[in-house]
């Protein structure tokens, strides 16, 4: 593992994208920044531009409109860029499975590195998911 990969795992900058979520997952993501959970301890922070991002955090069910944006955002991100699916919606489309508007799940559109289940997942679950992502990239 090179030095830049090591540094990458210690400073993951996160771009948060909602593809038609009910907003509960997004609130839980923001909870991770609050004093109780404080993910800045691990060097993570939310960034506003996809060009600065190392992690593309996707919540929601990938509806027809936002799926196009998701793919173009994934192409715009500088490599290496990891995708993390948060919540039931982005994993399997959850209760929107039979919906006409959600034709394909997230992992058939872009490669996903980690899944964090829950509806919505607790902040603890999100942090543990990120730890698993780091372990995975480390190759353990």
């Amino acid at each position, binding site marked *: 593992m090179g030095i830049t*990969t090591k*540094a990458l795992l210690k*400073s993951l900058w996160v771009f948060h994208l909602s593809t038609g979520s009910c907003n509960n997952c997004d609130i839980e993501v923001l909870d991770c920044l609050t004093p109780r959970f404080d993910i800045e*301890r691990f060097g993570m922070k939310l960034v*506003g531009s996809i*060009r*600065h991002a190392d992690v593309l955090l996707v919540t929601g069910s990938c509806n027809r409109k936002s799926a196009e944006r998701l793919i173009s955002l994934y192409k715009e991100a*500088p490599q*290496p860029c990891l995708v993390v699916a948060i919540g039931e919606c982005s994993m399997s489309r959850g209760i929107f499975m039979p919906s006409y508007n959600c034709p394909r799940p997230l992992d058939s559109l872009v490669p996903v590195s980690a899944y964090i289940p829950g509806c919505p997942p607790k902040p603890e679950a999100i942090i543990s998911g990120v730890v698993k992502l780091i372990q995975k990239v480390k190759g353990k």
Partner: protein
Amino acid sequence: MDILLTGVYVVFFPGFFTVVIIGLLSSWVDRKVTARVQYRKGPPLLQPFYDVVKLLGKETILPKQGSRFMFILAPLIGFVSISIVAVILMLRPLVATSFVGDLIVVVYLLTLPSLALIIGGAASGNPLAAQGASREIKLILAYELPFLIAIALIVYKAGFKIDLQTLSATSELGTVSGIISFIIVLLCVQAKLGFVPFDIAEAETEIMSGPYIEYSGPLLSVFKITQSLMLFTLPVFMITVFWGGIQFHGWELLWFVIKYVVILVLIIVIKNTNPRVRIDQALKFFWGFCTVLAIIAFVLAVIGNTYGIAWL
């Protein structure tokens, strides 16, 4: 031999590398204090180094629209100019590098990182970056006026000497006009650093970090290093001009560190206790309040000088 020694001074200690390392550590102090103010734990000590090394390993994406040449050149302009300032300021006590007019050179070079930001933003062909660049132009126009008046006051008090050697020999904080101009320069430094309340140009929540929006990978890391260098260089500039300068022997070094930490913490506390202002409010603040205050300080200094009142 002398040339070799000077080379070591310029490149290693107390020159370029030392300055970059201290700058990155100060940006850690910034993030840590901010976190403590918000009852958080904050990032680990080496966080800024991780960030920079990580960015060096990322892909660089050049914009399709816009000028690629200027896009690549802009971060380098800012980086080089702020490094020159840092080396001039840090080398002065060791080698007699001070020349007549180096104050003016330093003041000019301190503007260049902001100009580089404007160039970079405008060259990236992104509407939000253009918005940020235009705000940065207005901000420069706003803060340069009181900043220059405050510096001119110090030059006046030193008997129209414009070399840093003379200015650094005396501390101006014993006089009323000196304290007022120190406060004004502190506020201008806040705007120069692009910190809250004057982070209007790169407002994260509003225009997605403005001019930086299209930058990725190594170019962004150059911008990050430039920012942390500014966080080190501007307080050192204030110490040199207002607060008795830097010495590198014995207790003087400790004094310098204490002064530096005091100014750094002041900047961070201002950053954490204020909301972001709008660009027109910033313009009114600098051209109204700050400029008037600077002129009052100047008048006080002239009165004190003419009638021989030492504390004015």
